[in-house]
């Protein structure tokens, strides 16, 4: 920066050739990957027999099924309400325990908090494994060891929660602004303190979001609980669908929807307070 030449754009004309080359095409490798992916996508698209006209023309048929859902049936509202309570109870236990375990696992599975790269690899592997093994298999394991019933269902929910929250918590920790955490490092704070004070406050909105999503997911998870005979609203819904009582199904969907909205309202409020201090 010299005092004489830079006061106005006109005085020191640059020519376009002085500019560094623009890197629109970042590298051969990434171009190759991108083109490969695009080709795969298009190929898949043809395989999926994608056709918007067909979807459009079929919409009236969809209407027929919807019309069978209204008016929602109210004849079983009482057992449904009690089923939803049972489900909520199992979901709360499974999610709370799962979230607590996930937090510990996530600390081991985030690049910026893991004590050792090997621990990182192993815990990531475990979290992925929890997700990959299907619910039915988990249900079998737990049925074999603790029998049919709510306990096996809760254990499966815990595993589900860890598979989901473990990953999203770890990612949330990795995304936190490293500044405050560096400051704590500089003063010689221990890792635990650094995580508790430098990272968790930054990740809190994400943690809350994932946790409450997980709770909601547990409430919705008919499959898991039905597998082990734990009942709940999912079983009600499955039976209603199976018996073509779409009007009953509609009632259950509305009940679950109300619950989902409530959970999301809660999430949104807490998050808003933390993010915007409002």
């Amino acid at each position, binding site marked *: 920066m010299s005092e004489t030449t830079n006061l106005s754009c006109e005085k020191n004309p640059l020519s376009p050739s002085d500019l560094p080359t623009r890197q629109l095409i970042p590298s051969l490798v990434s171009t190759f990957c991108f083109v490969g992916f695009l080709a795969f996508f298009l190929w898949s698209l043809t395989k999926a027999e994608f056709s918007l006209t067909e979807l459009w023309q079929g919409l009236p*048929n969809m209407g*027929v*099924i919807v019309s*069978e859902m209204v008016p929602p049936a109210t004849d079983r509202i009482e*057992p449904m309400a009690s*089923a939803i309570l049972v489900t909520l109870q199992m979901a709360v236990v499974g999610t709370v325990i799962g979230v607590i375990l996930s937090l510990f696992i996530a600390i081991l599975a985030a690049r910026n908090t893991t004590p050792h790269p090997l621990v990182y690899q192993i815990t990531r592997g475990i979290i992925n494994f929890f997700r990959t093994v299907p619910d*039915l298999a988990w*249900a*079998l394991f737990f*049925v*074999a*060891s*603790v*029998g*049919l*019933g709510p306990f096996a269902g809760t254990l499966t929910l815990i595993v589900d929660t860890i598979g989901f929250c473990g990953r999203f918590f770890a990612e949330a920790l990795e995304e936190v602004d490293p500044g405050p955490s560096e400051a704590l490092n500089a003063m010689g704070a221990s890792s635990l303190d650094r995580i508790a004070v430098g990272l968790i406050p930054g990740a809190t909105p994400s943690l809350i979001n994932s946790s409450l999503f997980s709770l909601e997911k547990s409430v919705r998870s008919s*499959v898991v609980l*039905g*597998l*082990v*005979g734990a*009942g709940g609203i999912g*079983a*009600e819904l*499955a*039976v209603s*669908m*199976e*018996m*073509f*009582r779409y009007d009953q199904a509609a009632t259950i969907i509305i009940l679950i929807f109300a619950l989902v909205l409530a959970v999301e309202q809660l999430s949104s409020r807490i998050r808003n307070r933390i993010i915007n201090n409002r």
Partner: protein
Amino acid sequence: ETVKLAVTDLVGLEELQREFGAFVNVLEEKSGYDIEFLPVTNRTAAVEALRFKKVDFVLTGPAEYVVIKKRTDADIVVGFSRPDYFAVIITMADQGYQTPRDLAGHSVAFGSVGSTSKHLGPMQALADYGVAPTTEIKAIHTKMPVAWEALKRGDVAAVGMNHLKFLSFRDKEQQNKGMEPGAFRVIARGPDLPNDILMAGKHVDQKIVAKMKSVFTDHSQALVQAILTGEDNQKYSGMKFITAVKDTDYNYVRAMYATVGYPEYAEFIGD
């Protein structure tokens, strides 16, 4: 004393999955035991629970019986006889599928894998008519409501299911001012399927087994009434618990397993 009773995959008794209060009450009253009743949506889970002694009794279908018998030794307590319990193959009347042979090369929808009356039964029926279900048709496994919609649209040439289920579908169509019963055609049906069954795990005390057996046979009518409390279930009346059930009655089911490509469950065990 507490007795754990699981029930799984009883086609037509879905209501029992959620409304079992009356049934359990009758059972407790007549037997004097505390009954822990567990409706399980998945047969695999029920079977494994019995194998690992986590449940004492399982009320289930013939296909499950064969598997349980193969994987773990279990006793038959009572059979559960139902009228009109057989598999049918349904097509649309105007699509021109007249015989099972006409289905060759087309898609046929079945229920979930391993279900007696929605998978094994219909496939065996096809095989009985000389159509190899694993090679000559394209089998699609889905939920029955989905299969029904697919049949109406013509995505599948036929659906294999339980006869009673078919009747209830037809009734619903009529109620909703949909298709008339005449729009559907049954092009194959199997023989009446072996009975659903109440089994006891080997670990269960013989005294309890005997007690349960007597409760089921002596109070068959009361129990059936309790099962049928829901208004949707009335059409299944006429069921009965019976004691004279032999393992060999299930050899037809074993043959089904061979037909659908799982010969490991098809070995006939001694009679």
